[in-house]
């Protein structure tokens, strides 16, 4: 078995054949089946398989992109369940982006945040308020709702608003540590939600518990975005941008500073790292992803109300991060995808199936145990199982491995060139 795996690992052509075959087969089965969750999931998991291959990053991105942009939507569009797959895929994308944001805060910078959904809410409300007539209640100028064309601008506004609040939240962080921080962030999340739930008085800004209905759909070149299959592409584009950003930050000066703060604050300071600034940046960057996705969520849902932003939601996002592997970008992506798909599709389908069985008298369960009520129960068991089975996360974080040859070509010796001179100067000397 081991042997077998290692041969595959060494042989790129073999890998290419396997993954190619896999994609073709799952593609075809999704394409041909009318409605097959299994085929859909299998095709999606080709991405996981891809992750384990030894192709270069560029190749992986190309194949992955092709699957996501072309194959998956196309295959799914042939079946009846097209929109529901796309709905799930869209939500998966939204959650992945949020989980990646939280991963910066929790996984990289080591700051436990239990109120993360607040930023999502901020994004959603930012768009929701201006893309409905709600804003007329308090804005002295302008005509609301703004048209769906403004959506594209709001993605950035949502990002900025969330980042701003990320910094605001960060301010108490200057002093509070560890689990105390967890509770401060939790409090922040609750405060935001309660305020949104009550800001219908004295001035009606959020419409309180009634929520904002009929949010304008995004519009581009005169086309309204209404269906999940359309939102899928919006989310995909944002998500890819987010992944690129996260990846770059992770292995940069900023990412290292985050990790240093996580590992040892005192030593990090001794290395010249500004603790406050570094933490605030983590909060702001993490929050901004959520803010963007909040805008998308509001537009997709066409309805925003405070019940979508509860503590349980924050905890769920945290679960995605931890389950996937804290600090590990591929892990977090997998974790978020898994939890979302599990919750929205697999469990629903599973309980529906059990339900059919019991309605048809194949199995007989008392009403108290009715399968329709068992989703949480099953979810709980799955969580425990995963945690016990992969305590480091599904795909634990890996440190970057550097290439010794690249590091070695020292031309000058240490004493004369590098240590004395600023790194930038050195850059000029080099080429």
């Amino acid at each position: 078995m081991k042997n077998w795996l290692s041969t595959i690992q060494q042989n790129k052509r073999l890998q290419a054949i396997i993954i190619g075959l896999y994609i073709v087969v799952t593609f075809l089965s999704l394409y041909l089946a009318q409605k097959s969750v299994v085929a859909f999931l299998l095709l999606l998991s080709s991405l996981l398989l891809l992750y384990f291959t030894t192709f270069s990053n560029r190749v992986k991105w190309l194949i992955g992109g092709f699957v996501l942009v072309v194959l998956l939507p196309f295959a799914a569009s042939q079946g009846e369940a097209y929109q529901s797959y796309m709905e799930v895929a869209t939500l998966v994308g939204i959650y992945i982006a949020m989980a990646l944001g939280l991963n910066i805060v929790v996984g990289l910078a080591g700051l436990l945040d239990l109120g993360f959904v607040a930023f999502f809410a901020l994004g959603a409300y930012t768009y929701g308020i201006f893309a409905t007539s709600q804003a007329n209640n308090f804005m002295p100028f302008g005509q609301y709702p703004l048209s769906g064309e403004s959506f594209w601008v709001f993605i950035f506004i949502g990002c900025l608003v969330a980042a701003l609040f990320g910094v605001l939240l960060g301010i108490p962080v200057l002093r509070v540590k560890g689990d105390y921080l967890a509770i401060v962030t939790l409090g922040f999340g609750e405060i935001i939600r309660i305020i949104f739930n009550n800001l219908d008085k004295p001035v009606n800004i959020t419409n309180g518990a009634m929520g904002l209905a009929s949010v304008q759909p995004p519009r581009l070149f005169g086309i309204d975005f209404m269906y999940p299959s359309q939102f899928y592409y919006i989310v995909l584009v944002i998500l890819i941008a987010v992944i690129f950003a996260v990846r770059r930050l992770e292995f940069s000066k900023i990412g290292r500073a985050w990790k240093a703060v996580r590992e040892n604050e005192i030593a990090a300071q001794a290395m010249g790292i500004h603790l406050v600034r570094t933490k605030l940046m983590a909060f702001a960057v993490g929050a901004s992803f959520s803010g963007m996705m909040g805008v998308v969520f509001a537009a997709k849902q066409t309805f925003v109300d405070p019940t979508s932003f509860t503590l349980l939601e924050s905890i769920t996002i945290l679960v995605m991060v931890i389950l996937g592997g804290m600090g590990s970008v591929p892990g977090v992506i997998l974790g978020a995808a898994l939890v979302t798909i599990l919750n929205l599709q697999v469990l629903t389908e599973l309980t529906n199936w059990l339900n059919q069985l019991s309605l048809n008298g194949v199995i007989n369960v008392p009403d108290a145990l009715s399968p329709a009520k068992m989703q949480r129960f099953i979810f709980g068991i799955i969580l425990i199982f995963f945690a016990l089975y992969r305590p480091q996360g599904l795909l634990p974080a890996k440190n970057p491995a550097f290439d010794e040859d690249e590091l070695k070509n020292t031309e000058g010796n240490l004493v004369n060139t590098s240590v004395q001179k600023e790194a930038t100067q050195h850059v000029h000397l080099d080429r």
Partner: protein
Amino acid sequence: GCSGGQKQQNTSSGGSGGNSGSNVIKIATQTPLSGGSATLGESIKLGAQLALEEQKANFEKLGFKLELVPYDDQGDPKKGVANAQLIGADKQIYGVVGHLNSGVAIPSSEIYEKYSIPMVSPANTATDVTDRGLKTVNRICARDDFQGPAGAKFAVEKLGAKKIFIIQDKTAYGTGLAEAFKKGAEELGAQILGFEGITVGEKDFNGVLNQVLAKKPDLVYFGGLYTEGGLLIKQARDKGITVPIMGGDGLDSSTLVQIAGDAVKNTYMTSTAGLATATDAGRQFAEKYKQKFGKDIESYSAYGYDSMGVLLKGLENAIKANGNKLPTRQQVAEEVRKVQDYQGVATKVSFDEKGDNKYAKIYIYKFEEAKYPAKLEDEVSKQ
């Protein structure tokens, strides 16, 4: 029988062939089956289930096999919308009975509209449910802007309440109803001493009740559900607040009495649901229900039953209009909206152009003793 069931398992579990079930028509319910308000959510599902099973034979004759697919919206709009997508995607589903919570119904119905799936709501009272003018959305219960003022009228005119303290649970339903009540009461000249919110899921409402105590109103109105309502009533009585307490359809559950116990006395409630057991048909229904599920009916059981009835009526009409062939969803939706004078066990149903039921009534009950159902005091109809 059993073999048909086998086939269905395949399609719904995401297996391969779905074509073999082309004579299958599914109706979904979407209500909370887990979480805080599952009692009501389940009662709707069970009522609907009963209606569907009764109609099975009838549709068998037309050549179709009826099937129920219950979804759990968990009282969560996000979940509701995601389920709605699944429902939309399942081409065999021709209608939805649901939801319990207006906050879930509103966003979910946007999806139903996209797929032209008719929805008949047994319980959603918020005005926005039908006010958005969606073609697929219907309800057989009354609206909050009818229920609230009706309650207010009763409170002010019959109970002589001049100073009223309003408490609400800060949900879409609770706030909406409380606002409607407030508006009605103010128009009738009552003074509103306070308009305060509580948090769903909490158990200690003494804080707000201390305000009530200090303000000395002659009626307390509560907009919210029975779980909080029951405790609120109990704690109010414990505190020595003896004035009448009034609430809306959210209180209409046997559990309210269980929770509040004797304290429930002198509580009034408006409900969209009439006393099912007042009529023969209703009593029969209650019996069947009890026999089948081993439970007493809840306020919305009969409404679940009737919603399904209306939906199936529309479906049947659509099938017939289509020459006994499978109609499109659009056709079904149109036929559902067209249903006139359908006589259910709880209410008669005719939809207006918005999808509201012309015959919807508000019933006013009083708990004179710790017993459910309560005593019917008054009946208000729309016209």
